[in-house]
């Protein structure tokens, strides 16, 4: 929930008149004082590291000592590295699966929570709590449940694949990560859907009632099309968040078993200890390009939609 949907349309001059109408006179110096701290710190904290990172991605540096330029060798190597390819495959399948799971569940919950029910406020509060819980800590809690309680349940019920910890199974560990990520991400998605559902005027449903549309038809034919803008927001926000998955995976599987659940960010971080600093910087640059492409699509869509 830390990213944003859409840049506002750039203001035109007539919506923002300068404080003094005399046009191009000197800017009051204090405005520079307002802007400079952000510009300077931002440049030092983000721009400079980004440039350094891109620079070293064309070298064979191990993070310290001598290095040489090696051109695009790092980038070429990425495409034939099974570890890298596996982390991309895992991260993208995980992100897409989680986006679907989170959005379906959050939408259904939002429909329920905006309907005429009792204890509406209390229920909403409960469903939003996971949003304020730290990802790594809840992952530790779930890790205990997955390795102790769920197998105990599986044994009691005689279900084979459940009687061992799913986190220890390379083929199933990702399911645990999806569950915990969904648990934590549904609240934010849910709140956006609730806002979307509440923006639909009630008389639309009234008219549908009069025309004899069933509740199911109303959900598919009225509600869903009218909140499609919110679906787009949630899908893109979710995709960007889940591609950066780190905390919850560290808490649940630490990338294991083996490297079965190692996400792209985790692979990049190994560059700090693993001696392939420059190589992982190339990986980071690739990842950056992918995130930019997704962000541009996001801006396109939200611009086209104008505003919700």
């Amino acid at each position, binding site marked *: *929930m*830390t990213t*944003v*949907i*859409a*840049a*506002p349309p750039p*203001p035109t001059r007539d*919506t*923002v*008149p*300068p404080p003094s109408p005399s046009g191009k006179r000197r800017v*009051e110096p*204090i*405005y520079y004082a*307002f*802007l400079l701290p*952000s510009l300077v710190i*931002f440049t030092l*904290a*983000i721009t400079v*590291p980004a440039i350094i990172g891109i620079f070293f991605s064309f070298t064979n540096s191990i993070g310290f000592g001598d290095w040489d330029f090696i051109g695009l060798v790092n980038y070429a190597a990425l495409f034939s590295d099974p570890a890298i390819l596996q982390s991309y495959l895992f991260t993208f399948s995980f992100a897409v699966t989680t986006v679907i799971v989170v959005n379906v569940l959050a939408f259904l919950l939002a429909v*329920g929570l905006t*309907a*005429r*029910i*009792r204890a509406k*406020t209390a229920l*909403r*509060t*409960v469903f939003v709590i996971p*949003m*304020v819980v*730290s*990802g*790594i*800590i809840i992952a*530790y*809690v*779930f890790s*205990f449940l997955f390795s102790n*309680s769920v197998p105990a349940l599986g044994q009691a019920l005689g279900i084979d694949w459940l009687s061992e910890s799913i986190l220890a199974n390379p083929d199933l560990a990702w399911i645990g990560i999806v569950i915990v990520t969904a648990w934590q991400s549904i609240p*934010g998605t849910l*709140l*956006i859907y*609730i*806002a*979307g559902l*509440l923006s639909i005027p*009630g008389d639309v449903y009234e008219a549908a*009632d009069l025309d004899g549309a069933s509740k199911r038809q109303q959900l598919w034919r009225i509600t869903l099309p009218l909140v499609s803008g919110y679906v787009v927001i949630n899908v893109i926000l979710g995709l960007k968040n889940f591609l*950066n998955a*780190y*905390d919850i995976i560290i808490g649940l599987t630490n990338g294991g078993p083996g490297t079965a659940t190692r996400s792209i960010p985790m692979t*990049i*971080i190994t*560059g700090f200890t693993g001696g392939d600093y420059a190589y992982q910087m190339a990986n*980071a640059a690739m*990842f950056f390009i992918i*995130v930019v492409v997704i962000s541009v699509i996001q801006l396109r869509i939200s611009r086209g939609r104008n505003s919700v």
Partner: protein
Amino acid sequence: MSTQPALAVENVDAAATLTDGKPRRGPARRTRSSGGGGQRPSTRLTLLLVLCSITVLIPLYVTVSMAFKTQAQAVDGNAFSLPAPFSVDGFVTAWNLTDYPRAFILSVLITAGTVAGTVILGAFASFAITRNWNRRLFRWSFFYLLAAMFIPFPVVALPQIQLTGFAGLDNPVGVTILHIMFQLSFSILLFTAFLRSIPAELEESARIDGATTWQTFWQLIFPLLAPMSATVGIFAFLASWNDFMMPSLITSDPSLQTLPVVQSIFQTQFSNNYNVSFASYLMAMAPAIIVFLFTQRWVMEGVTQGAVKG
């Protein structure tokens, strides 16, 4: 300073509807009930949602019940049993093992610094940018600062770990600065959108009364920004308080780690003292949950506004 710009009211509207569910649903409900539709709250749907909410509550219940067990009961593997006998030994041990007061204070300081820094730097920059939009420097700064939205932390993490090390910022101060910088573009986006909606006449009248730009900002603009500041602050709070990745990678001294990071000792050592580890998890989770329960209306409004209006 009671003048509320029209757009501000509109901004809060959608969110205000969210929490109590009355303003917009109200009229609809009335019309429907007069039309004879099912107007009573549905008990079946309520029950279904209560059942669903159990999935949210189970991990929280397990955390609380495990935390109050004795070590002997905690290792028997049944996560769902109630504590018998009731014991607070886990809390005492966890408090000492993680040096809870120190980790808590560090988390509070980093979070408070992030919230204050994000709000103030963001408001400063946004004010300068919107009031000098016809100047190239300010216009370009806007897009430059916004570009951070495209840069996730993992992408720049490696050079940042190195640079903070060189600069002597591999500590909570460095974490706070980075937290602020990764929140900045979002806050500038919200603040500039809001500042554009404030009529220029308001500022001009303050200036006619002889206020300097500095005074105008603090006495007129900043108070008007309050609802946006709340939204920006809530996002900064959640991101900073719950973050594991950045402090764990940036801070080199383990004794300067935040609450989420110190929990990792239970993965390596003491891994069978479940009552101790869950007591520790509970103490780390509880502050944010308690704050949320008291401020939930604002938090829900803020998150919705930030995501939808942003």
